[in-house]
């Protein structure tokens, strides 16, 4: 217990407090009010980064919710359980490549000279790597990479949740004349709604932190994508390129507040975590 308390204090609470301290002080350690926040927000890279992350989140969350639910429902009703299990595991494997590995794999997948989908990329009119990763495409590409590594785990979770719906309930709906579609829509999806919300919250909070994808793409894009695509990158650049830890901390605190609000709403409203 003591061990956990120390870790919680040292790597949960103290850095939060420390980040807040830096966000509200200036380089001379004087209280600076909101000036770090307004100055960071006036930086020419700030609004574009917010836009990028917003667009990415929109695509990623919609794709995640739609495909995960559809695939989980389909896999759940497969008559042969072994196949369902095998397919779930196949979908889950890319989770092992989370982080930098997934980005490297997708760099290759998106390069028409070596990609197995080269014919498809050319069909879409993209003959070179530079054309594929032009800035307007990045949000959708990052969402695709995130989906590739993350969706499988969530499909497994949703299948688990679907398994926990009592069979009698489905039978009752069927006797009442409901078909597969309306059972899915009226019974199954509402019964697993809590899990869907949980998924959306974690994916949203994680998505606001977008870093490794744009960071690696920027070092491999022949200069197409900048180093300041996302807010986390901007915060990193403030801290380590511009030597302005106060602006960096301000952005960190903003992201922290967003995820804190989301987490707090979820914890208090959902009763998700009550064990008894």
């Amino acid at each position, binding site marked *: 217990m003591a061990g956990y308390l120390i870790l919680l204090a040292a790597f949960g609470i103290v850095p939060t407090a420390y980040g807040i301290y830096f966000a509200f002080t200036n380089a001379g350690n004087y209280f600076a009010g909101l000036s770090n926040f307004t100055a960071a927000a006036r930086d020419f890279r700030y609004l574009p980064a917010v836009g990028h992350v917003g667009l990415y989140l929109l695509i990623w969350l919609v794709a995640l919710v739609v495909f995960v639910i559809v695939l989980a429902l389909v896999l759940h009703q497969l008559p042969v359980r072994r196949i369902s299990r095998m397919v779930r595991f196949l979908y889950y494997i890319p989770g092992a490549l989370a982080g930098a590995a997934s980005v490297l794999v*997708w760099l290759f997948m998106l390069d028409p000279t070596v990609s197995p989908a080269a014919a498809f990329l050319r069909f879409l009119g993209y003959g070179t790597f530079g054309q594929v990763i032009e800035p307007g495409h990045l949000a959708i590409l990052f969402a695709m990479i995130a989906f590739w590594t993350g969706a499988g785990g969530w499909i497994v979770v949703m299948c688990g949740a679907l398994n926990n719906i009592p069979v009698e309930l489905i039978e009752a709906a069927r006797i009442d004349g409901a078909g597969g579609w309306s059972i899915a829509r009226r019974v199954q999806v509402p019964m697993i709604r809590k899990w869907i919300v949980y998924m959306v919250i974690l994916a949203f909070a994680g998505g606001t932190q977008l870093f490794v994808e744009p960071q*690696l793409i920027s070092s491999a894009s022949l200069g197409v994508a900048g180093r300041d695509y996302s807010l986390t990158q901007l915060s*990193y650049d403030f801290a380590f390129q511009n030597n302005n830890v106060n602006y960096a901390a301000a952005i960190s605190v903003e992201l922290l507040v967003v995820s804190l609000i989301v987490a707090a709403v979820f914890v208090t409203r959902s009763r998700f975590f009550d064990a008894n």
Partner: protein
Amino acid sequence: MQTDVNSSAVVPAAAPARPRAKPRQTPSPARATGRLLIGLLLAAFAVFFIVPILWLLLAATKTDPQLVRSSPLSFGSWRALRHNWDALTSFQGDTILLWLRNSTLYASLALVITLVAAVPAGYALAMTEFRGRRALLVITLVVMLMPATTLVIPLFLELNALHLIGTIWSVVLPYSFYPFGVYLTYIYFGTALPRDLLDAARIDGCTEFGAFQRVALPLAAPVVALVGFFSFVANWTNYFLPYVMLPSSSQYPAQVGIGLLLTDVPQFNPTAGTGAVLRPELALATLMAITPVLVVFLFAQRFLITGLLAGATKG
């Protein structure tokens, strides 16, 4: 209902396979088309999820010209694989192996500390009453829902003030703080461990710690394994934290290392100088960086897909 979902989610034994409703209708043409569509949908996604990994496996067996000219999903040769291996390991003198060693060291140390800290904490939260328990629980949950990257820059500032930047502890200690592990064990002990069993142990003369160690801990083996699995995978695949904390490339874990290799691949970065890394070598390096996690996945396959995972994943 709420508890039901949670408990059966974390406890394999509590979720027996339920008998499934048998399909009753006789097959009709519409039904057959439906099945075909479902098959196509599942196959299309299987291709999407698996082909990139297959490609990666095969790319490591090719030379760079073969990578461009031969069919993307063909096997190259063992000789080329051998050659890529030699070229990769000679890059900056065995650096890739050093990175893998670093990854192993960081993730394993963190794993041990995580288990030692998180499991007793989850137990105490679930089984004992103390002042501040409720507050501690709420804080744990909130921190757990925060993505790990949120605190990286503030952590850097904190560890910088403590002069820990560049030491392995700047990575290992933040990795070891794993509130999700506390939550998982808390749910497990709170819902699945019969209190009578602990009372019996106490009557038999066990101390508090003895009851935990001899009764609760063995019963919780599956959930401890699960916490270990998630902690190891999360830490192995972490990029941002070591990227920020470790200034010297000889300290990089594999994840950050392959990112560095990428900048030496001329096709992706024309400014890459001499001693450039060829694309098949990068593919091989990526493969090596993920192999430990893939192996863990294969071992963990059974509990991962039995639905045990429900309620047990983070981002």
